[in-house]
């Protein structure tokens, strides 16, 4: 039988996302993908998936879901006070969820986006090599749209023997059982300013604009979405008007249209654009931005390319260690000892996971 996720309540805006649709931007196809790549990857690692497995990105108000089989899941990102049959499910920890248990997301207490990973991944159709939903293009994910009530979302059916955790679940009578705790990889800590590299038109902006960008607060406007965050704050003016030829945009590019209010381009950005670019938010700090919401205030601080690259490399090293431990916790070392024979099988399947 196909393994399904039944949608009882869709939440405000719940989208299937993976790491994005790369390789097609030359046709004008946006990359899309998870807004908070870090939380998406953490959730996947906790259930033993590759980074690129599709997760459910839930924004502000999450869904209510049931699964047709016992399912290893993990939640990461914003805290939406998720329960299974009324019992609180921890964030950042793999749990084996009982078939039919009601997984209910509540109000979002902190952050904006929660990622739900299921072992094996969400199995909606690949469109141009990716399962990411692009709502404006109406493709990817579930019919190119956010979830709606009654959707039955296909999941990858595990081909393996039951995990030790699942045997524990069967014996427990609980709605879910938890895998061991894994320490999260370090991340940029919150009220820290967002680090940026200077953009190609940095020097074309007035001294006042450059100073304001590095010293003053910007507030995320309500006119913000997966394509871009509009920022209210000091107007950033050019020394003189600039005619630009459209060129590449990237996740984190800060462009400034003639209004003087900057826009940070996010996951659904277009592949090229023609406004002056004052800055690029470094990739390591994009997850902070993805968890910010309208009304939040932001500060920016300049770094060099070298600093950006080192921050990225350090985060990747920390993540590689985390992935190793997470897979151990979920698959190989349950809270109670598993029979030796099954242990060996799990070790073998674990060894096949990329680091």
């Amino acid at each position: 039988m196909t393994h399904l996720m039944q949608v009882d309540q869709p939440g405000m805006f719940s989208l299937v996302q993976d790491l994005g649709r790369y390789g097609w931007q030359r046709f004008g196809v946006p990359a899309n993908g998870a807004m908070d790549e870090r939380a998406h990857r953490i959730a996947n690692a906790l259930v033993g998936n590759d980074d690129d497995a599709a997760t459910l990105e839930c924004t502000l108000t999450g869904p209510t879901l049931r699964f047709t089989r016992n399912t290893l899941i993990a939640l990461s990102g914003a805290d939406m006070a998720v329960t299974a049959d009324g019992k609180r499910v921890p964030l950042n920890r793999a749990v084996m969820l009982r078939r039919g248990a009601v997984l209910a997301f509540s109000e979002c207490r902190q952050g904006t986006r929660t990622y739900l990973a299921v072992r094996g991944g969400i199995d909606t159709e690949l469109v141009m090599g990716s399962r990411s939903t692009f709502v404006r293009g109406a493709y990817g994910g579930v019919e190119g749209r956010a979830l709606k009530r009654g959707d039955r979302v296909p999941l990858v059916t595990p081909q393996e023997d039951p995990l030790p955790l699942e045997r524990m679940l069967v014996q427990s009578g609980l709605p879910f059982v938890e895998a061991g705790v894994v320490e999260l990889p370090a991340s940029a800590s919150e009220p820290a300013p967002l680090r940026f590299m200077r953009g190609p038109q940095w020097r074309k902006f007035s001294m006042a604009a450059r100073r304001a960008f590095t010293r003053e607060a910007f507030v995320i406007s309500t006119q913000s979405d997966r394509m871009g965050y509009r920022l209210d704050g000091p107007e950033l003016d050019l020394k003189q008007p600039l005619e630009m030829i459209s060129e590449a945009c990237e996740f984190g590019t800060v462009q400034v249209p003639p209004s003087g209010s900057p826009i940070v381009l996010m996951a659904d950005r277009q592949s090229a654009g023609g406004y002056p670019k004052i800055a690029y938010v470094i990739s390591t700090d994009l997850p902070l931005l993805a968890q910010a919401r309208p009304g939040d205030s932001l500060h920016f601080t300049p770094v060099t390319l070298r600093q950006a690259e080192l921050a990225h490399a350090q985060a990747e090293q920390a993540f590689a260690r985390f992935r190793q431990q997470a897979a151990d916790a979920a698959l190989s070392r349950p809270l109670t000892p598993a029979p030796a024979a099954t242990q060996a099988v799990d070790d073998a399947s674990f060894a096949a996971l990329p680091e």
Partner: protein
Amino acid sequence: MATATLVPHLTWRIEPVGDRCLIIRLGDRVDIDVSQTVHAVAAQLMHKALPGVIDVVPAFTTVAVHYRAAARPVTSGSGHVSGHVSGHISGHASGHASAYISPYKQLKRDIDALLSAGVPALPPSTRVVDIPACYGGEFGPDLEDVATQCGLSADEVIRRHSQSPLILYTFFFAPGNPFAGPVDPSLQVPRRRTPRTRVPAGSVAIANGISSIYQNDSPGGWNIIARTPWNLFDARQNPPTRLQLGDQLRFVPISRERFAELLEARS
């Protein structure tokens, strides 16, 4: 390679676009020659598939290269290396206690070497695509205004927009959204001062010497002179675009009746 015709007078400049993308600048004006160079460089980069590169994106005068830095590891002071070090990273960056090899600089060096070796020129595309377009009225609400700005009659604007083929330079803004030129110089108009909040899909528009076709209903500031009944994008085809980079596009004026006959569904 020895017998291939190379792109003549190839000059370039490479800059970072954040820490996961770089841009190769190949010219400073929008024209057919620069566009052919851009397409040739993009084709060569896709053909060579350098390590870590996940997307190669040609625009009017630039090629963007998106990459995964993790595929090009940074060495830290302790000598600990994340991932494997590929053979071309030589040891002579050392001499300092902390050997640091920037993923950006590694990729830039590879691209510099690749471009220095010469880039095969692409044969100019001979494909001419006749795109049906119904001009004026509700399908082209800015036609009269463009005519006034250019001191021409509406019929003359239609004639000049449709008589000579435009080269398809690049896609962006929306999936399959083409940008082509050069538009007849007598039709030089800027973008509208106030953008529309909704431009219908299929709208044919001009601004600043370039013509485009809106693929989705969306806001837009270009001058809309016509609408095509064609759908130019299908996510389930490979390639997903009906038009291809370098194509010669020729707009063919059609009647409202013909528009209705040819109207294609959008997914």
